[in-house]
């Protein structure tokens, strides 16, 4: 049964029960994935998914139910379960209403690529083999693991206030690792995110994987402690920014008193060199769309301008608490996977967080550092979202002396606080890379500590 039919069935069934407001979010997806194990194509997977989440407001009582749905009966059951949970729920005095209709389309990002939507298994095999072949170098390097995931998604939001919108998008996400053979193996990791196939260069990815693994095989354990300029590239910085600034910008966290930027609109929260926008009009963004997942029209917004906090981001619930219009940041979708989106509750998040790049090339930025470290790979670049503190295991980094990378290191902890680091930005490079729902450049910071053993 198609998405429209099951959404209509759920809407009718919910309305029949007589609640004040009904909202249906429906999504249908196709995923085609390929896994490489040990330089060979190990798995090819095709996944067809479709489901609903029904939100009900019965007065100020809220309930919801979600399900994988392929029949009208399942849709009806999901709708009735949502009504039942709403009627069992205590009153939420803060709730006003689901979004109202009438928001004009402000952005129309190009996020659908027919080439991705109709990619065949054989074409996926060809891409993977090109990456693998470009990575290998005799018997020195292998590709122990790799994954290419392509997906297409159609989502719709319909509510009893007149919202009725549709979004369609595609995505390609890949993540490969290479490894040198020998007693002290080095590892290289590369990722790629795009709604489009056109930007994908498998040969360049393979070459980078080879170079990274070779560099990583030369690491020595870092000893002692140092504090100098620290350069962090987009692949690590994106997650560090999302788990600090991304969380601090969320109106949900502001209202729950767990944002580090409560009451700081109009104040300087970062170095003046930092400007952050949420730009859903950018066709490179993995979550860019004309509407958010509550059906609110998305728009381009400046969040931090030359270091000054300009505004928070809002879903409909949190906007109503401040008696303002929602900013189109109520999201269910994820940047790297489309399966089971209908199970996820609405969260407040930037749709496409863009940090304005600087003027120097990455190479010029490195050359300008007298005493520092370039971080290539950490275990997992997450930051404590409440405090901003981080301690990240460095798996590959380069010590810089006089603008030259003189030593490759590992076995160290990178220690700091991301909110403090954003106030101590040394320089910003001119590169820009899509990583999950961010587009960020390479940035250098002062004040971050590196600690090793001994």
């Amino acid at each position, binding site marked *: 049964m198609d998405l429209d039919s099951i959404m209509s069935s759920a809407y009718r069934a919910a309305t029949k029960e007589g609640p004040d407001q009904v909202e249906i979010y429906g999504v249908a997806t196709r995923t085609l994935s390929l896994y490489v194990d040990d330089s*060979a194509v190990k798995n*090819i997977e095709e996944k*067809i998914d479709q489901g609903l989440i029904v939100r009900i407001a019965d007065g100020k009582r809220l309930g919801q139910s979600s399900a994988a749905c392929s029949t009208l009966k399942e849709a009806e059951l999901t709708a009735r379960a949502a009504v039942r949970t709403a009627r069992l729920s205590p009153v939420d*005095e803060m709730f006003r209403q689901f979004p109202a209709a009438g928001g004009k389309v402000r952005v129309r990002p190009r996020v659908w690529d027919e080439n991705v939507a109709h990619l065949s*298994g054989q074409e996926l095999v060809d891409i993977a083999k090109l990456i693998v072949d470009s990575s290998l170098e005799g018997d020195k390097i292998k590709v122990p693991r790799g994954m290419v995931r392509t997906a297409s998604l159609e989502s719709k939001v319909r509510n009893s206030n007149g919202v009725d919108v549709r979004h369609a998008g595609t995505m390609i996400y890949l993540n490969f690792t290479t490894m040198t053979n020998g007693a002290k193996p080095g590892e290289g990791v590369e990722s790629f995110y795009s709604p489009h196939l056109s930007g994908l260069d498998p040969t360049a990815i393979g070459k980078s994987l080879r170079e990274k693994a070779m560099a990583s095989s030369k690491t020595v354990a870092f000893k002692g402690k140092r504090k100098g300029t620290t350069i962090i590239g987009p692949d690590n910085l994106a997650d560090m920014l999302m788990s600090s600034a991304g969380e601090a910008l969320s109106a949900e966290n502001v209202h729950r008193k767990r944002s580090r930027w409560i009451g700081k609109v109009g104040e300087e929260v970062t170095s003046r060199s930092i400007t952050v926008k949420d730009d859903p009009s950018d066709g490179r963004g993995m979550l860019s769309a004309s509407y958010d997942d509550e059906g609110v029209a998305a728009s381009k917004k400046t969040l931090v301008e030359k270091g000054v906090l300009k505004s928070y981001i809002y879903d409909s619930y949190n906007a109503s608490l401040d008696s303002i219009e929602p900013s189109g940041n109520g999201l269910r979708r994820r940047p790297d996977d489309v399966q089971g989106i209908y199970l996820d509750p609405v969260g407040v998040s930037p749709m496409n967080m863009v940090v304005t790049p600087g003027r120097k090339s990455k190479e010029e930025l490195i050359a300008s550092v007298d005493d520092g470290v370039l971080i290539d790979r950490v275990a997992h670049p997450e930051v404590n979202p409440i405090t901003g503190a981080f301690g990240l295991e460095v798996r590959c980094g380069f010590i810089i002396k006089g603008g030259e990378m003189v030593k490759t290191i590992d076995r*160290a902890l990178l*220690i700091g606080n991301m909110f403090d680091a954003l106030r101590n930005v040394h320089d910003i490079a001119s590169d820009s890379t899509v990583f999950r729902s961010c587009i960020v450049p390479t940035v250098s910071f002062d004040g971050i500590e590196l600690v090793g053993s001994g």
Partner: protein
Amino acid sequence: MEDLLRTAVERMQSAGAEFCDAKYQLRKSTSIRIVDGSVRTLTEQSLGGACFRARVGGSWGYATTVQLDKKTLLESCLQAAKNARLGGALGARIPDSPSRNRQVRADVRVHPDDVPIEEKLGYVVDLDKAQKIDPRVANSNSDYRDEVKTNLLVNSFGSSLKWEEVRTRLIAFTIASDGGRQEMYFEIADGTKGFELMKKNDVTAMGKLSGEEAVKMLAAKKPPSGYMTCISDPKNTGTLAHEVIGHASEADEIVQERSFLTGAVGKRVASDLITMVDDGTIKGAYGTIPFDDEGTPSSRTVIIENGIYKGYLQSLETAADMGATPTGNGRAQDFGRRIWVRMTNTFFDAGDWTLEEMIEGVKFGVLADKSISGMEDPVGGGFEAKTLRGFVIENGEIKDMIRSFTTTGSALEILKTTDAVGDHVQLDGGMCGKGIEDFVWVSGGGPYCRSKLVVGGG
């Protein structure tokens, strides 16, 4: 459905599958989230679908769908066989195994299906209220989730298995603020248990503890940094076991020669105080499963015994590749995801030290209290473990509380420095990803352990 799955297996075999299985899974759950006294989420979820998996040579083809009509299912199974033929990898043939025909109901006292949602809600309301013990508690969060997962698996061994898994989890998560600074604390109760978990648990005490400790955290100091003695609490010991050795013992990493433990069987990898086990059969533990997602019964695997490395965790495929016996560790997040070799309940076994004895012997170090997360490094043999908080130890005495920090180091070096292992094992549940995806429910733990690590926090 069982007949349809059997037909699908026959069709995949006819289409060239050397091994294949067909699975239907239904995951039903109730989730409640209360934030600052308001119910933010009260939801019932249902995720049902089928997965067909075929193997040709060394390649797998998967096809999954939520459309459960006969036509779609039988088309999907052929797509799985087609995808398997596309791969072209070489690999060992999965050896034949005796067929199994069993039905297993979850061993719980109070099945979540038998508890009205109002009653579940009542406990969560109490948990949330209890966190507000001080004006400095800025934000209280209370999460409840129960899940009933029903699996039906048919494979080309002739097996037909139906089993149920029930999990319940309750989390209190408190943010405290003194106006300028914010800190967090949490308490978790979980298990492969039904609603008896809630009835036996004093939710008011749990919420109060989370609130009190969050407020205490406001006075926590910056952690010291450097290479030093660290006593890990059972949660952090569990993270060490899981991240340092557990992931590197997953046999898919061994087959690819990606793990630093490749060829380690019979070698000393830790001090003789260390014994480490993965056991999917422990009653009530969060990672317990009757069968893995390939239909192999779960089992107890000794990974390290008195410091000597013993063996790996196996799926059907890796066992075939290595000529070993499957250990029941082939697991997937859900029917729509790939099966990997995964842990279940992984822990260091008990020694004979008390915590007090361990602390007495430390001139300067830290006590790590409550694990947040960890990340494995099978290739490099490192690891990263994030800790919510800790305490400085000076001259055998507990001193200042310190805020969150991270520990790291070389896996093999750390375990060789372990010089004291506590006398009581505790397991705590959590989620484990293969890298940053494909999350499965697991538990980890052990006793208090004293080792030398690199420590640091912002």
